[in-house]
């Protein structure tokens, strides 16, 4: 089985080497690709210097476009599984094999690494937690499924979902909306508890001022997704 780790990176010169070290020591059997989303710092130079596998986008596409590039790379190179793994050191590669195990044991299509099953580790800021609870509730009402961490960017998907995401993946704030479209297409989604660390360097892409815009936009996106036709990539 071919497994790929997709690492979207925008200005992560300080974190990227540690992230790759974590992957190469803790995630045996996985390949990785860094998608450099036109970073303006030395992310590219750091990766080239260390001989990391990197794809650089000529224009900045945002998180959705960058991750989708990774899914296209996975499809093109015939990977069976792909996992999104943030380039800022929030995620730990120790969980990757557990995620694969869970997917195989329960025959699921998507596994989300959730901070809110055991409520261990860094729990995100108060305002973000309100958003997360709200999106969980919205998803519960619309799809009747429990997703404890819909904004988690730590997600493993199989080939069917890779194909689906290659066709359409939201451009910004893609996580909650894409979970809904996966559920709406009757794919099975599971979660395993993970511990995430606080970002070591750099700022989170979502600040307080943008929170309201984020909530409104993602809510409308979720509502519209529910009335879309099935987009199963088969």
């Amino acid at each position: 089985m071919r497994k790929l780790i997709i690492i979207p990176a925008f200005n992560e010169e300080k974190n990227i080497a540690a992230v790759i070290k974590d992957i190469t020591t803790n995630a045996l059997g996985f390949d990785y690709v860094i998608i450099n989303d036109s970073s303006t710092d030395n992310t590219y130079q750091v990766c080239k210097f260390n001989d990391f596998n990197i794809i650089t986008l000529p224009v900045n596409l945002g998180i959705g476009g960058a991750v989708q590039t990774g899914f296209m790379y996975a499809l093109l190179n015939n990977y069976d599984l792909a996992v999104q793994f943030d380039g800022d050191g929030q995620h730990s590669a120790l969980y990757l094999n557990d995620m694969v195990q869970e997917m195989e044991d329960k025959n699921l299509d998507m596994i989300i690494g959730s901070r809110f099953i055991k409520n261990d580790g860094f729990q995100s800021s108060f305002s973000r937690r309100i958003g997360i609870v709200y999106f969980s509730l919205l998803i519960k009402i619309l799809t009747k499924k429990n997703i404890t961490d819909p904004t988690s960017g730590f997600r493993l998907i199989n080939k069917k979902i890779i194909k689906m995401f290659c066709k359409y993946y939201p451009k910004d704030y893609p996580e909650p909306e894409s979970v809904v479209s996966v559920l709406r297409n009757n794919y099975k989604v599971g979660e395993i508890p993970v511990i995430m660390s606080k970002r070591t360097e750099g700022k989170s892409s979502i600040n307080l001022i943008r929170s309201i815009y984020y909530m409104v936009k993602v809510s409308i996106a979720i509502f519209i997704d529910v009335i879309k036709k099935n987009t199963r990539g088969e």
Partner: protein
Amino acid sequence: MELRLSIIIFVSGVFIISSIINLVRKEKLDLKYALSWLFIIISIFALTIIPGSIYAISALIGVATPINAIFFLGIVFILIILFTLTVALSRASANVSKLSQEVALLKDKVNNNHK
């Protein structure tokens, strides 16, 4: 506001909102750009439905007749949307030229490798 006018505004508003949502649903319109249109139409809805709101606004911005207040607000909104469109267009054309340059350089590299 006169009932007939309210009904016309309401019906056309419903029509416009549903076509915008339909375009987003078909992935032909970015939600990012649809949001400002939805916001404007919903504000117009609010003005039509809440009685007296348009008079309050005209008094607030110092316009004698309510219909002029609507024209004024309409023009302001259109200018805002046009401006954001110009910004978005500039970004898009910058991206296109960067992509063209990248493709041209890659083409040159590929051709040289085949020689």
